[in-house]
């Protein structure tokens, strides 16, 4: 459903993403892990059509983002790490406008908007300005928008940041339900427990390159440890000595 092939992004002489390839199948939740500055957000932004790749390609639902951007974007729901929402619109207005951007029209739109607001527990805020929302509420509103047009694939950047436990639980449930309906989800996250709990497969990126890919068991084998915890595997793969230095500094 989502195929990333030999994707490269260079900023001058600096290579932020260095020939990565990955695929996310229908119904799969694929964890995209890596330390800060590894190239996760850059990759997701290229998938969403916000950044032009230096080379390589991204295909969503059979449509290449560079060649058929409208068809590819119509199949994708994108949840960025720093989403933009019109602060002076109400939640309902924002979702209706968003529906229009994806060509949704007619009486069904209002029902769909309500369905999404109910799903993300925002219905009673429908007529409130977005500027009065908390961070978690804005995050949930952006997710409403991303799922509004029934995308076949979803790319999500750090979905759990700033959410309370109830909000995080809600998002996990929604993602699971969407994946059961065949939606492919590529999820970038730092929360390794979430990745371990939800993802069928993982890709670990470091300095722009994929250094490990596969199921949690595959990654464990690659990391060469018997430890069950994804955190230990992640630190072994990405260089965990910094933690010891941190301990010493504190």
């Amino acid at each position, binding site marked *: 459903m989502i195929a990333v092939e030999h994707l490269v992004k260079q900023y001058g002489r600096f290579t932020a993403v260095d020939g990565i390839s990955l695929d996310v199948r229908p119904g799969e939740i694929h964890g995209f892990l890596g330390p800060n500055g590894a190239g996760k957000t850059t990759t997701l932004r290229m998938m969403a059509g*916000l950044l032009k790749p230096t080379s390589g390609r991204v295909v969503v639902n059979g449509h290449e983002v560079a060649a058929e951007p409208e068809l590819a974007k119509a199949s994708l729901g994108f949840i960025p790490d720093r989403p933009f929402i*019109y602060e002076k619109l109400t939640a309902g207005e924002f979702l209706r406008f968003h529906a229009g951007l994806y060509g949704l029209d007619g009486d069904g739109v209002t029902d769909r908007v309500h369905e999404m607001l109910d799903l993300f527990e925002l219905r009673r805020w429908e007529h409130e300005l977005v500027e009065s929302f908390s961070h978690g509420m804005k995050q949930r509103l952006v997710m409403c928008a991303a799922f509004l047009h029934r995308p076949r694939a979803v790319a999500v950047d750090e979905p759990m940041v700033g959410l309370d436990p109830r909000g995080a639980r809600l998002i996990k449930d929604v993602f699971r339900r969407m994946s059961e309906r065949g939606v492919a989800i590529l999820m970038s996250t730092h929360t390794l427990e979430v990745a371990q709990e939800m993802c069928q497969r993982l890709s670990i990126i470091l300095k722009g390159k994929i250094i490990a890919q596969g199921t949690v068991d595959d990654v464990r084998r690659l990391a060469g440890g018997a430890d069950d915890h994804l955190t230990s595997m992640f630190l072994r793969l990405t260089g965990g000595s910094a933690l010891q230095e941190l301990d010493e500094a504190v």
Partner: protein
Amino acid sequence: MKGAFTYLLLPAVWSSRNRAARRQPGDLTRAFLFGVMGIGVFAALFYGAAWVTWQLDGYEELGDYLLRLGLSWLFMTFLAFLAFSGVVTALSTFFLSDDLRLLLTAPIAARRLFYARFAKTVARSSWMVIVFITPVLLGVGVVRCAPATFYLTSALTLLPFAIIPVAVGTASTLLLVNVFPARRARDLLMLMGFLFAASVVILVRMIRPEQLMRAESLPDLTGFFSTLQSPLTPLLPSFWAGELLFASLKGGWDPLHAGALWSTALVCCVGLRIADERWHFSGYSRSQEAPKARFAHFRGIDVIARTLPLSPVRRQLLVKDMKIFLRDVSQWSQLLLLFALMLIYLYNFRVLDLGRIPYMSRFVKNVYALLNLGMAGFVLATVAVRFVFPMVSAEGRAFWLIRKSPVEMRDFLWSKFWTGLVPVLLLTETLTVAANELLDVDPFLKTVAALAIVFLSLALVGLATGLGARYPRFTADNPSELAGSYGGVAFMIVAVLLIIVIIALVGWPSTSYLYYQLRHRPIPALRLALMGACFAAAVVLTVTTWLHSMRSGIRALDAMSN
């Protein structure tokens, strides 16, 4: 509707509607004040245009010729303004605007997005020109008893006339952004723009246009007209617009220039759209990239700050404020224009030929000295509302850093005050002292004016700092917007009133003193006491305003923390 490009403009419409429906405190007052000011400017422009047209009416054919020339000149001036405004606005609407992050991930055809953004660019770049030109054309039309078609033609002329230069400006931006990163291009453009504006202002002043009004310095008539006509080439849209409007003013119709205007606007739109479809995404993608920015370290500021007798908190606040201000081109580039205006202001005093009226020169000089005090006060208020008032808000989303630190709000606000006071005082004191020196006013008045500016600076900088703390907007993207906020408008009103009162309190005793001095008569004791009371009242009023504003600002910040 949802397929049309206008759908993409809906959030702006809905946002405005919601903003109007959920008024904030002070919105009505601000709307009223701006409304009154707007009506005043509209009326002045209408009256000015009507008066000039009426004067020209007396010269029959020559008047017609000058009116025709005037219309072309008017449009020519706006042509350059619109092109430059188009460059700057397009940077924001096409490349830097936050909502692009949402719109570009949606399946919107590039063509549709282009038309929506271009419509926004044209509207934002040209609204000021339209607001200015409407009363002017109305004034011309009313005096010339123009037919209704003149007003219709005006509307049909302004649209393509705005589209052409804005399209050229947008095309330049498209090119620029594909060469430089967008944020760097914006800084570069702002600097260039202000330098350009400053040099034009200085140049226009240096050629001393007032000499044209003196009969003895007029060139021969043919030379005068050829000079006037030389920049008006028939190849520019400004010429077509001028000709088209002049023809319709006379009740006729000029299909040639109407055709030229509309067809060029159409070609510009289509050409720009093709270029946009080809290069917009690569330019936008570049604008998202954040290569290591080059910046000045300003280590000198650290060195100077270390030598100042300041507490560590105040020293670090000063260093931070200075560095942030100097590294943001959009903040300090406006100062260039201000310096240009100041130079012209002083130059005017230099070329002022008061010797031509010997009986009056002494009296006029002293009146000028008081006017100069008012002018310096007004410059002070303007600089304070633009640079000092936003200082607390400029902490922006990083204000949490101050609030969570063991820094007293008193320390914080007083640091802001001194940071603002030093440059403002230097600026206005230089302006006042230099202008009075050039005028050669009485030494007594020189001293009074110099002292008055010190006290006014304390009061107005204190007022701006205090009100800035009482009405902060930590979410504002650009501190320059804050001058138009409720607190900014309130500051300007109080500042202007204070300046008027101080000039009255200082002006009356000063002129009284000069009156008695000129007649070599002693000042009666009662009058002397009254004069002293006036000076004392001025001191008390300014010091009270200063300290009360600061105290009120500190209280507001403390309340925020509690």
